[in-house]
């Protein structure tokens, strides 16, 4: 059942993105930024965790999850350490994805040659 939910949720996010790209003059860079901001706001309202419970990886695969990870890290930091935890915890949950992306991109850029 969770596979169907994952299909529907992830598909709907991509569909929304495609509609934005078709109807406006925004580039994919704008689109991803908008989606991250939407993810932050949804996580701030406490909705994103419910999406993850409902759709599983369907909600963690789109880029909106990056915003949700940032907000959840900051809130966890606040609950354990107070206001200083907001800054200390902001990147904690998102760290794995961000670090992996930077490291893998660097290694790939060193190994492969661009054709242009």
């Amino acid at each position, binding site marked *: 059942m969770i596979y169907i939910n994952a299909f529907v949720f992830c598909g709907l996010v*991509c569909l929304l993105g*495609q509609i934005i790209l078709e109807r406006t003059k925004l580039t994919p860079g704008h689109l991803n930024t908008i989606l*991250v901001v939407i993810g932050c706001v949804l996580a701030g309202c406490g909705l994103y965790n419910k999406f993850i419970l409902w759709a599983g*990886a369907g909600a963690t695969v789109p880029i909106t999850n990056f915003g949700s990870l940032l907000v959840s890290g900051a809130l966890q930091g606040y609950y354990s350490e107070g206001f200083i935890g*907001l800054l200390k915890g902001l990147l904690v949950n998102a760290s794995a*994805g961000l670090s992996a992306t930077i490291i893998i991109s660097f290694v790939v850029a060193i190994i492969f040659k661009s054709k242009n």
Partner: protein
Amino acid sequence: MDKSEYKKIIKSKKPKEDEFKNIIISFFVGGLCGIFGQALTDIFNKCFHFSINDSYMLTMVSLVLIGSVLTGLGFFDKVVSFCKCGLIVPTTGFAHAMTSAAMDTRNEGLVKGIGANIFKLTGSIILYGIVVAFFVSLIKVIIG
């Protein structure tokens, strides 16, 4: 010929991309990405006994790996021209943006090329993500 006429001619000659078809394709490709992610998560969770949050994280790392290597091999742009947003919105698009920025500038050197330009396309995602996340959490904490 004045400008409005010129624009009309351009519009009639432009190849029409089928908007509805693109939207349906991105829905299905995006959905398949979700199913693929869920399958990977289940494998990490049930076969390798990671916790559920770690499984989600490892799934994200796997998708980043796939997106980066496909970009390195030069396949990603061809696939995206068919799949559209189905591969841009998942984490593969984030990996593609960072890897292609690094690859395009690697000839200019390690520091001035890759170092200065690797965040050229993804910088805005990271910047606005962090700024908005900070203020959203601050507001949430203050409100209660």
